[in-house]
């Protein structure tokens, strides 16, 4: 068996929900990260808790990307798929994320009872020109699985994958012990480790695939493995926020879970409200009392919160709101990613409304966004959004340990945090609609806030000039941010044929795609927004340096209706920005698709 050296690989494990595929993914990547590889993992999570096994709805698994360079996204197509049975494989093939020579390891242990179904799927695999490796769990391993009540197949699969990707056996066993050591009885743990060894041995003797990724990651720096929502939760602690108020909703809920276990130790409260509206109301109440607070939600919750968002704008109460986007409209697909909330966030409230919208591109942004959002919210006394999405929220990555800032007052915000979000420090004094902004408890500062229009004294005022004045001041707060914004992050050429633009979670794919373009000597640049609203002032000038400006968005768009970012950019710049990729498939956008589409435009085939 010869080992093929690779810079980067991508493989997946597909199983029924509830059989531990994601746990295996975690163990594998931790072992690989500890031995000097860069890793990125995306779980595939069904929307239901226990969908019936051996159905398409039961698909639960992990996609793992391992490389010898810092990986920013889940990448392109899969090289190796290991599937526990034919149905989850069939379901996954529909997503068309396998590469043309993908190797498929299919467990045929259940074939006897499902002969026809297996035949059909195997035919599909052959027809697609993919390489099929049918296998069965060895009898020794099967006996152990039986003794564990049917659990433990995942260990066998991990053994196989560990062998194929030349992961260190010791490192994996060490991770198994760290993960299960405290939870499982000694004998059960031993059995699991034994099943893993059987899997490893089986692959060594029977599977001809073997890949090696050079261990290049420095091992002397402290590293952490963290997902987007955990990073956001810890960022909330670091930002000095003392109350999180939320209502369970996928995919935002895990922020609440993490903080419920941790925030009290840092002096903060975690409140589960009776509904989405109550959750935001309570955050507003706390901030009116001078206590930094935050609320987190996803699409349906965002819709419910709109009235209070407008209220916070009008009443000038600081508000930080996290929107972990999922597929819409309505309930849509709760466990799939999308970037379609942009319009609802920027323009969602009734009346003219002013706010700042910050997006996160990766787990590092997730950690620093709460500090940045708190800075904006308190300086401007406006709603500030942190826009994440299912993909960013749930993907894990190994990164260098981040600097913890322990924010107390917003004026202490670190320059590197502002730079990360491409904004200069805001002026010390920012005009408010009301002159007095004291918090309760301040003697002599008594004041009433309201959603009604008021004058500078805070008195309700319906006179002609008063409402226009309030609008002007609120909008000027946003313009102050607009003027403080520096040029967004750029990739590739600073002028050329095509500028590829995106926001939020598409950053990694855009960066990688532009790199590929540059390697192929294509005249392409890339741009990514972290602050999505307002937009900086120099965009038109940057856009003028390219023949085409196109967007990449995980949101719907077509030739009549540009996708949300394209619409916004067109309106703000009057440049003919077109959606190059506007896919609302629920799946992350792949760098290679960006490359292909870019080439099509360069060759004059589209747009």
């Amino acid at each position, binding site marked *: 068996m010869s080992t093929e050296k690779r810079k980067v690989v991508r493989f997946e494990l597909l199983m029924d929900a509830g059989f531990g595929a994601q746990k295996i993914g975690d163990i594998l990547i*931790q072992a690989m*990260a*500890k031995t000097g590889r860069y890793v990125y993992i995306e779980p595939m999570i069904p929307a239901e808790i226990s969908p019936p096994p051996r159905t398409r709805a039961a698909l639960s698994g992990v996609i793992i990307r391992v490389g010898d360079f810092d990986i920013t996204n889940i990448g392109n197509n899969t090289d190796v798929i290991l599937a526990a049975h034919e149905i989850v494989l069939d379901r996954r093939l529909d997503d068309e994320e396998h590469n043309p020579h993908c190797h498929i390891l299919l467990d045929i242990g259940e074939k006897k009872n499902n002969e026809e179904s297996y035949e059909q799927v195997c035919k599909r695999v052959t027809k697609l020109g993919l390489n099929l490796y049918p296998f069965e769990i060895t009898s020794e391993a099967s006996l152990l699985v039986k003794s564990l009540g049917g659990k433990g197949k995942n260990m066998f699969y991990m053994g196989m994958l560990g062998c194929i990707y030349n992961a260190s056996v010791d490192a994996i066993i060490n991770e198994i012990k760290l993960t299960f050591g405290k939870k499982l009885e000694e004998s059960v743990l031993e059995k699991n480790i034994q099943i893993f060894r059987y899997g490893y041995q089986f692959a060594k003797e029977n599977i001809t695939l073997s890949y090696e990724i050079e261990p290049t990651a420095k091992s002397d720096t*402290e*590293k*952490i*493995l*963290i997902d987007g929502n955990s990073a956001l939760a*810890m960022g909330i*602690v*670091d930002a000095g926020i003392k*109350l999180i*108020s939320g209502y369970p909703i996928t995919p935002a809920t895990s922020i609440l879970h993490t903080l419920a276990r*941790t925030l*009290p*130790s*840092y*002096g*903060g*409260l*975690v*409140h589960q*409200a*009776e*509904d989405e*509206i*109550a*959750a*935001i*109301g*309570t955050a*507003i*109440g*706390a*901030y*009116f*009392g*001078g206590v930094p*607070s935050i609320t987190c939600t996803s699409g349906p919750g965002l819709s419910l919160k709109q009235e*209070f968002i407008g*209220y916070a704008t009008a*009443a000038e109460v600081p508000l930080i709101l996290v929107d972990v986007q999922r597929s819409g409209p309505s309930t849509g697909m709760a466990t799939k990613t999308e970037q379609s909330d942009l319009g609802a966030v920027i323009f969602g409230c009734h009346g003219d409304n002013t706010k700042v919208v910050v997006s996160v591109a990766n787990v590092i942004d997730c950690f620093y966004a709460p500090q940045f959002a708190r800075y904006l919210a308190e300086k401007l006394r406006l709603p500030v959004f942190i826009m994440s999405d299912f993909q960013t929220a749930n993907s894990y990555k*190994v990164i260098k*340990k*981040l600097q*913890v800032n*322990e924010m107390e007052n917003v004026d202490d915000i670190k320059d590197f945090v502002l730079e990360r979000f491409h904004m200069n420090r805001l002026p010390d004094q920012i005009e408010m609609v009301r002159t007095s902004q004291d918090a*309760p*408890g*301040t003697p*002599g*500062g*008594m*004041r*009433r*806030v309201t*959603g*009604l229009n008021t004058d500078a004294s805070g*008195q*309700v005022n319906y006179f002609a000039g008063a409402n226009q004045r309030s609008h002007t001041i609120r909008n000027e707060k946003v313009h102050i941010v607009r003027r403080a914004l520096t040029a967004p992050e750029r990739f590739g050429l600073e002028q050329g044929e095509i500028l590829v633009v995106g926001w939020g979670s598409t950053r990694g794919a855009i960066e990688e795609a532009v790199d590929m373009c540059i390697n192929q000597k294509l005249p392409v640049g890339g741009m990514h927004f972290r602050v999505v609203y307002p937009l900086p002032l120099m965009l038109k000038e940057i856009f003028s340096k390219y023949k085409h400006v196109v967007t990449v968005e995980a949101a719907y768009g077509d030739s009549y209706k540009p996708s949300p970012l394209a619409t916004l950019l067109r309106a703000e710049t009057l440049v003919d920005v077109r959606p190059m990729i506007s896919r609302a498939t629920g799946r992350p956008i792949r760098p290679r698709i960006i490359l292909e589409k870019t080439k099509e435009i360069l060759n004059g085939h589209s747009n």
Partner: protein
Amino acid sequence: MATQIDVMPSNDPFTMKDLNTEHPRWCVGCGDFGIIMGLKRFMVEKQIQPHMTVNVSGIGCSGRAPFYFNTYGIHAIHGRAITVALGLALTRPDLNIFIHSGDGDAMSIGGNHLLHGINKNFNCVFIMYDNELYSLTKGQTSPTTRKGHPTQTQPLGTMLDPLNPISFVLGAGASFAARTADWMPDHLTSTLKAAFDHKGFSFVHVSQRCPHFDPENFDHKTTNWFSFIIHEKGIPADKRVAEKVEVITHDPSNKEEAFKLANRKHAYFGLFYHDPQKPCYDELLRRQVKEAKPKPRSGILDSFKI
């Protein structure tokens, strides 16, 4: 409600005048005047510090109440005052919180929050201004409008039986449920005092006249349609009216009897129910913080180390 009162910034006690702001924009004869007068009288009597007090409201005629107190105030959105007040109660236990909410605000659009405010039993005085009608929107049926009463939206007469506020809150597990009326200042102030002294969610149902849209309702000149319920642990009858009205004794720890009284056609004013032992969510949540092992923020990423 809160019992902590901050030290006064000056040595002079404040007076009714200090609590006034602008002249209220309510109709002549509106019961809301009586309610805010009652609360102001109580605040002055007890010297509840204005800078440590937050009046919170939703939308409707009652929603304007916070504007007319020189305290801190939040005029929030329709039906959601409880949610905002909770944010203060959780994070600022040093403050005195009064919630002002109408019958539509409390029992229609805000019904869910009332249910959960009661269940959470967080520390506040909740004053329900019940004129049995939507008035700021010019006379539509509310959840407490009497059956048959014609309104703008149900001109042939309100179709359904009204909700019964006291019965509803008792059913939801209220720790304090009392009823009073805008035209009995003595009783109103005594009720607010009892409500303030109770730690938890104190529900005060106030019958409130709306002379503009429903002048016939709440005939405060006759007295045969209501009685006072009194007890040594309850609220005394109104001094001015007591002689003309039936006064009965009711033990406020007797919930079964409270339900019976609440469900009668005849009206009762006084303390229906009081349970000083019901746990308060705001306290429980803060206790979790107190009892959690404090950790330095510098270590927040340590558990993610590989």
